[in-house]
């Protein structure tokens, strides 16, 4: 149970002083005092649920309380900024949708931290593919039929997104570019509002995570046309992937990852990477992640995640300014 009382805090403070004086080198990768996982989104979302799955396991592994803290706002950037400016001791982690943070410098103004300079990578946690779901109003039965209609009727199809600059907005823009179609892109207030719009037939299509779309697809309230990712979904064996349809691999879903304040001791980051990798790869955790539409995916090393992030960031920046998504 995660609990914060002054008693453990003071005693760990004393214990910390003791260990410091006794054996500094041997205990270097040990955690002193509670660790917090900052989730920069409202409770109940994917990042929050992952953090709450991981927290008790991490606590067992490192022998310190692990606290999940939601600091929502500005598309994840308030929480990220908080971690970026925390004491660099490896005790403040950020669990977030990484694409949102990587796109932020290109989409928002006044982001007061640099994701590459102020935050250090630890590990990726999971990947969730997108399902392209069409409203039943038009009765499209396949991806091709949908695209044919879009080509014949420029701006005749309205596509719902979770907000300007949101992941699914960027993916929508990529699709428009790839396919040479013109859609009427409509921003909604968050993913569930966008889903509501497509189910009601107000908008015609959206790209969204599997947890949000699958129930409607399986209940025939939305028609799944395609999915992102390398493989078809087991729940939707007849729905092709974008790759099968001849689209490039960039049409990804969302990536959840864990970062830490830059300048944290490397041995602590290494220990975090090890423990988290082990926790995420356990059968129980993989199954839990799958339950909410994700695929567990641990980075080989913190550096590997760092490379992936900087590639993504450059690519996103180029694409976003090219597609005119930022204001």
């Amino acid at each position, binding site marked *: 149970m995660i609990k914060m009382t002054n008693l453990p805090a003071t005693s760990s403070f004393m214990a910390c002083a003791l260990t410091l004086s006794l054996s500094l080198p041997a205990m270097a990768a040990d955690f002193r005092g509670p660790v917090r996982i900052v989730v920069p989104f409202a409770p109940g979302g994917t990042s929050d649920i992952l953090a709450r799955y991981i927290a008790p396991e991490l606590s067992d592994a490192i022998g310190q309380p692990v606290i999940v803290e939601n600091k929502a706002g500005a598309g994840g950037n308030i929480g990220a900024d908080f971690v970026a400016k925390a004491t660099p001791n490896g005790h403040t982690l950020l669990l977030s949708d990484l694409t949102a943070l990587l796109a932020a410098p290109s989409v928002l103004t006044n982001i007061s931290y640099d994701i590459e300079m102020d935050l250090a990578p630890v590990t990726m946690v999971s990947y969730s593919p997108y399902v392209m779901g069409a409203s039943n109003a038009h009765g499209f039965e396949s991806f091709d039929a949908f695209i044919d209609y879009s080509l014949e009727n420029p701006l005749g199809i309205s596509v719902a997104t979770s907000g300007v*600059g949101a992941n699914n907005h960027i993916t929508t823009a990529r699709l428009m570019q790839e396919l040479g179609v013109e859609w009427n892109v409509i921003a909604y207030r968050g993913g569930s509002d966008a889903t509501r719009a497509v189910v009601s037939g107000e908008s015609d299509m959206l790209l969204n995570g599997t947890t949000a779309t699958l129930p409607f697809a399986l209940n025939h309230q939305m028609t799944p046309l395609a999915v992102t990712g390398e493989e078809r979904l087991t729940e939707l064996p007849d729905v092709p992937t974008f790759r099968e349809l001849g689209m490039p691999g960039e049409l990804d879903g969302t990536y959840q990852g864990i970062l830490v304040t830059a300048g944290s001791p490397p041995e602590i980051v290494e220990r975090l990477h090890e423990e988290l990798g082990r926790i995420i790869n356990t059968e129980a955790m993989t199954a839990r992640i799958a339950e909410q539409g994700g695929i567990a995916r641990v980075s080989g090393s913190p550096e590997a995640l760092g490379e992936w992030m900087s590639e993504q960031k450059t690519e996103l920046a180029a694409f976003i300014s090219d597609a005119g998504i930022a204001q």
Partner: protein
Amino acid sequence: MDLLSNLALGIETAFTLENLLYCALGVTIGMFIGVIPGIGHLAAISMLLPLTFYVPATTAIVMLAGIYYGAQYGGSTASILLNLPGTPASAVVCLDGYPMAQQGRAGVALMMTTVASFVGSFITVIVLAAFAPPLASFAVAFNSTDYFSMMLLGLVAAAILVQGSPVKGIAAVLLGLILGLVGTDVSTGIQRYAFGLTFLYDGINIVAIAMGIFGVAEVIANVGKVKGVQSAQKITFRSLIPTRQDVKQSIMPMFRGTGIGTGVGILPGTGTSIASFLAYAVEKRISRHPAKFGKGAIEGITAPESANNAAAQSAFIPTLTLGIPGDAVMALMLGALLIHGITPGPNVISDNPSLFWGLVISFLIGNVLLLILNIPLVGLWVRLLKVPYPLLYPSIVLFIAIGVYSINYSHMDIMLVAVFGVLGCLMLLLGFEPAPLLLGYILGPMIEENFRRALMLNQGDMMVFVERPVSAAFIALSVLLLAWSAYSMVKDRRTARMAAGQ
């Protein structure tokens, strides 16, 4: 009968010892959370979420839901006793609840709001059990056009809330609408009036506004004043009992409030505040003596209180039947289901009948518990008025500050409370009313967003607002209400002039 066997299943599920215990725990926590100003049920539920990891899904949701609807009961307590709303939804209860307390009728007001809460919740739960799926399909068919027209009606209702000068009332509504502009513009992604401050990107926290302009301003106005009437009053058992007249005057308002609350609550994204404000406006409009409103009219507390509880219960309809959450709390409920391996969506009821029906029955149990728990507490809360103000107000300010902090763990939100406290004092000095401002703030973003979206979806054709039947009905109602208000204003002025002439 299908419904009967479902109810039997629900009773079987809800009446296990574990579910009863967690239900009682949830509503008790919720009740106290509601009473403390500032602290929201969202913060409380998210912090208590880990407690439910180790119990079955149904038990978890029973408890978390209990916190949510339990908090709706307590929200009006501080409104009545201290003129500061426990939740934004109960801000409107201040208008008549606080005058009642000043007249020595705090106990009556608390008793009646408890009963009104119970009536609103209980009826709505029965509606939920009987008609959830058809209501949900109605709710989901509501589109941007309909939302816009409905919110427009809400805005007209805001004008009815005004007690003093009509022009100042409209100015207050406009101020609220302007505050609602702050933050990211949904349609374009641009930050408006955020002045580069990231904590404003998602808009101003509504709790900070409500606590500032109602709570802090009220505290400042009261400090140093010799508290006369209410602290001298004896609290007898009799003074807590509503008169027959009180009950008679409240019955219809409670039913109307329940109807409005249920209707507003099933629409995703509208929330409990709009329900309570609308219910108040309706009562004031149709009352035969509207002048009594703002001076302790009992309808002015019972109707909004029923409405806000009804809305809290009916918010579960789209959440559970469709998997579409109306607000952050409902999204959290769905998150809790996900954690327990249940994917929310349109199949939840058919896949997990014991979850849905167990929850429905637990709502009934929870509300009965809340009624039983709240009545003896009324006497205790009234005693709060006996606490000397020099001891009371630092505590109020502290709880407001911690409560607001708990929403996002952001100290900037506490700072905003101070800023809006200053604004609230200015408004008090200059004769602007806070309630229309709050309603303007709540409605503004929804009106703009849905208006622009409706036009984007319909190639700028303004006729859509009158072409869709639901939207047309709301527009017609707004126009009627506006005409009626203008007419009665002119009439009032004429009678006043004639009275003055005599």
